[in-house]
């Protein structure tokens, strides 16, 4: 994908980043559960 304006570039990359952020917010608590569910 080619971008001619920094604004278009930001819109595109931030769009992807927001999806990544959502994935992180869901994944991290689950991974924490995986790490700790055998404690005690």
């Amino acid at each position, binding site marked *: 994908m080619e971008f001619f304006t920094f*604004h278009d570039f*930001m*819109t595109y990359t*931030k*769009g992807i*980043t*927001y999806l990544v952020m959502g994935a992180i*917010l869901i994944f991290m*608590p689950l991974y924490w559960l995986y790490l700790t569910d055998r404690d005690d």
Partner: protein
Amino acid sequence: MVAQDQPMEKSSILTPFNVITSIILFVGVILMFLRFTRGIGAVTNLDNNNPWGLWIGFDLLCGVALAAGGYVTSSACYVFGLKRFHSAVRPAILTAFLGYALVVFALNFDVGRPWKLPYPIFVSQGTSSLLFEVGLCVFLYLTVLFVEATPAAFEWLGFKKLRTWVVRLTLVLTIFGVVLSTLHQSSLGALFMIVPSKLHPLWYSGYLHVYFFISSIFAGMSMVIFEGSMAHRWLHDKMDATHLAQSDGVVLGFGKAASFMMMGYVGIKIIGIAVDNNWHYLSTGWGAWFLLELIGFVLFPAILYGMGAREKNLTFIRIASLWTVLGIILNRLNISVIAFNWQLPSDLRYVPSFMEVGTTIFIITLGVVVYKFIVTRMPILYEHPDYKEEH
């Protein structure tokens, strides 16, 4: 509890509180009618040079900053493990939820086509905008706060299973709350990073987002203290022994924390002046106004907080909390209204109309009424007898 509050309310409907609030609410409904039949132009002094006024500057910016008590208190208790703040969590979460709900309610007055408010999230995502970030976070955080506030309602209604289920999510919700709050509190400041040409250099900074985030923390603490002292005055009979026993500790602890945080804030504000070399502005009229805000409404209340925490003087801390809250309001209004468009000739500057002020008072009153309704019914200031010693 039911037995306690029933006779009080039934016996005197014509209390001064009820009379004043109903007048305000009545006027508010008229203003709402005018706004949606005659347009924004008919009720506000907004114009093409001043597109944001009191409704954004106060209702949105101050509303969000002062509702920060929710994430500050819940993270202190559940993440940082300061269990002595436990009895302060519920009232703080409730106030935060009401605060955000009212912010969104107020936005319906201010934006041109309020029914399109879900558009940025569900229809067309303008991801390059900081306002998108704010909107997304406020939407998500309002949801988080709602879920966090439900256990009180479930206890009131007797939904035991639902309550247990939600309580199990406490930690995740608290951490989500802190993440989302960090983001939108700071992004509200970053909204103004796009206008170096309109905001006075003393307030404009590359650190605006940091300033907004840090100040939201002590704004939240101050609001918890201030609200607590109000509740002690008017809702003392609704508090249980745990709440009363912990409340002095909450006041002292938050007072000390806020004091230290505010000193740090003064420091980073000075750093902001230094990195942009804005010293020369301090000798102007705007500089005096800036120093009034920074010294008069941050440094002084910070010192008063500090004295109160050292001397264990709750009165000092309570005064300092109100002082700090006023300082936060001054700061947010400076950035959004007063020091915004500072270069425009005075006849083009914005001054809110009486109807804008009236609408804002209406919204605050609405918040107080709903808060009172909930606090007199649900286990907020006391623990429900069925769920004691559970946490």
